[in-house]
């Protein structure tokens, strides 16, 4: 009886040790996501479907990005938006409108406005993706989303100048790609929710093919972002990521 008890204790201790070892820290998870998803440069063609209260709109665009500080997007359709270009250079954002042949900088309160009527604001696009530098990440549990097991990573801001006090990430345990993200206000109110799905392997990374953004305070079905085509580490013409490239 005594031997059985000791054996059970050893088995339990070993199993627990295994679990503890298998569970990476919040920071490790964020680093793994970064390694999986970021690249030096990338090109992607996408379709954004904005579900309004009465009707939906579809906007096609193509984008080039260098790291997370420089990005250039050109809208392809519908005809009304075609030719509109957007350039992000670090913390500045410009939009070129072909109708007026003018380039304007989006700043101040304009950053709070929605991008093309979607659930995304310009400041969401400007949000610094360097989460590890601003948040303390803690794994608080695990949960299944569809047939995938995920870690729940809760992030609390450790600096003051962040847009969201708390973030929650559901990260695929084996692919290290987030499947869901929730953004909370200081008061704990859920403000925004992002669902990532249709995860596919591109080269040696796992990447979502469909992202749904939802402003939780607003009525509507949210905004779907479908990545039609994506290429990593592509050559980007030098002029494209400059203001001159907008015209």
């Amino acid at each position: 009886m005594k031997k059985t008890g000791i054996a059970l204790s050893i088995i339990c201790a070993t199993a627990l040790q295994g679990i503890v070892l298998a569970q990476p820290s919040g920071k490790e998870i964020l680093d793994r996501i970064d390694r999986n998803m970021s690249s030096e440069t990338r090109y992607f063609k996408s379709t954004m479907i904005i579900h309004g209260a009465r009707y939906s709109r579809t906007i096609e665009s193509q984008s080039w990005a260098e790291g997370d500080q420089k990005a250039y997007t050109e809208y392809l359709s519908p005809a009304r938006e075609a030719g509109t270009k957007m350039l992000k250079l670090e913390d500045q954002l410009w939009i070129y409108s072909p109708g007026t042949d003018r380039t304007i900088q989006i700043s101040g309160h304009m950053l709070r406005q929605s991008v093309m009527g979607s659930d995304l604001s310009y400041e969401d696009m400007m949000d610094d993706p360097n989460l590890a530098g601003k948040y303390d990440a803690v794994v608080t549990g695990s949960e299944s989303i569809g047939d995938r097991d995920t870690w729940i990573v809760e992030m609390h801001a450790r600096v003051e100048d962040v847009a969201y006090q708390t973030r929650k990430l559901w990260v695929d345990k084996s692919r290290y790609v987030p499947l869901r993200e929730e953004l909370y206000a200081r008061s704990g109110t859920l403000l925004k929710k992002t669902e990532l799905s249709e995860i596919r392997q591109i080269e040696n990374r796992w990447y979502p093919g469909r992202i749904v953004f939802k402003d939780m305070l607003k009525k509507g079905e949210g905004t779907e972002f479908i990545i039609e085509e994506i290429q990593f580490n592509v050559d980007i013409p030098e002029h494209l990521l400059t203001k001159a490239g907008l015209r």
Partner: protein
Amino acid sequence: MIAFKLAYRNLMGAGLRTFLIVFILSVSYVLIIFMNGLYQGWNHHARADMIDWEVGQGQFWQEQYDPYDPFTYADAHAPVPPEIKTAAEQGRVAPILLSQATIYPEGRIQSIKLKGIAVQQDVLSVPTDKLVAEDHIIPALAGTRMAKSARLEEGDYLLVRWRDVNGTFDAAEVKITGIFSSPVPAVDAGQIWIPLDQMQEMLQMPGEATLIVSGKGVELPGKIPGWEFRDHDFLFAELEAMIKTKSTGGSILYLILLALALLAVFDTQVLSIFRRQREIGTYISMGMTRRQVVGLFTVEGTMHAILALALAAVYGIPLLLWFAKTGLGMPEGTDSFGLASAERILPYYSAAVITGTILLIMITTTIVSYMPARKISKMNPTEAIRGKIQ
């Protein structure tokens, strides 16, 4: 005196023609006084309303605050200066904290200005006594314009999202505890008022304000470092400019009417001098100097304006007094330009407007009467008596 008697007789002799000219001139008198009185009344009311609802007896602005540049709102805040802190605690000055926010009425998204104001203030007519907190819910006030655009009713709960001093999002529900009607759109459209202390807590700006509105009888320090005082001249500049523009536009109507009346006087004078050459020749041959005859005809023309003044007094005084009592209803949407406007404007007829109008019509009538009469000074009296056209 002879000139006046003669002029009066001649005008009365002309009958209907004189009456028509006098009538048109009298309408000019009444219309000019009414229009100017209306704009003065509007200005008078708008200033009084703005003092009651928006500007008080002047305002201190945090040095970075620019009401026309929302980019400045995030940084335009500072602790209420110690020089006026006591007055603020007594409600004699009203510190206001301003921030941009987003509301979600019925799930729609709408950008607003969130304004924090002390509940116990006595400076502005905003009914802050209705900002009564219950069960940790933030009480809020909305004007009728705001309530209409966001479809709000008293007792409604509204979700508000804002960013604090560090730019971090926060959100909470507020309860509309009062809807007020104000003639000043600047305190109503696109904004919601909440208690100052709660807003300071929400924005993590304890004891801070964006602007401070002064009440009556408050002794203000001349200069406060970091704050700029805006007096009435500065705060009303936009209103005055707008009313001046509207007044200039409105003056076109009565200037056309006045021009028509003056043209009629001018024509009458030309015709008189042409038809009454023998009379002119007789006056000169009887010993009147040419200057006296010119004066006689000028007085005759000017007398139109004097008779018109009498006629205008007969029907104009009761009419203008009636308008001054009942006012004139302003069309809906007048305040959509952001200009303060009551539902009814009571005209205000100042002595300056009345005197100025009388002088304007008298002088212009005298000038147009004199211009044709100058021809008399070149007339040959002998040929004038013979009736020869000169």
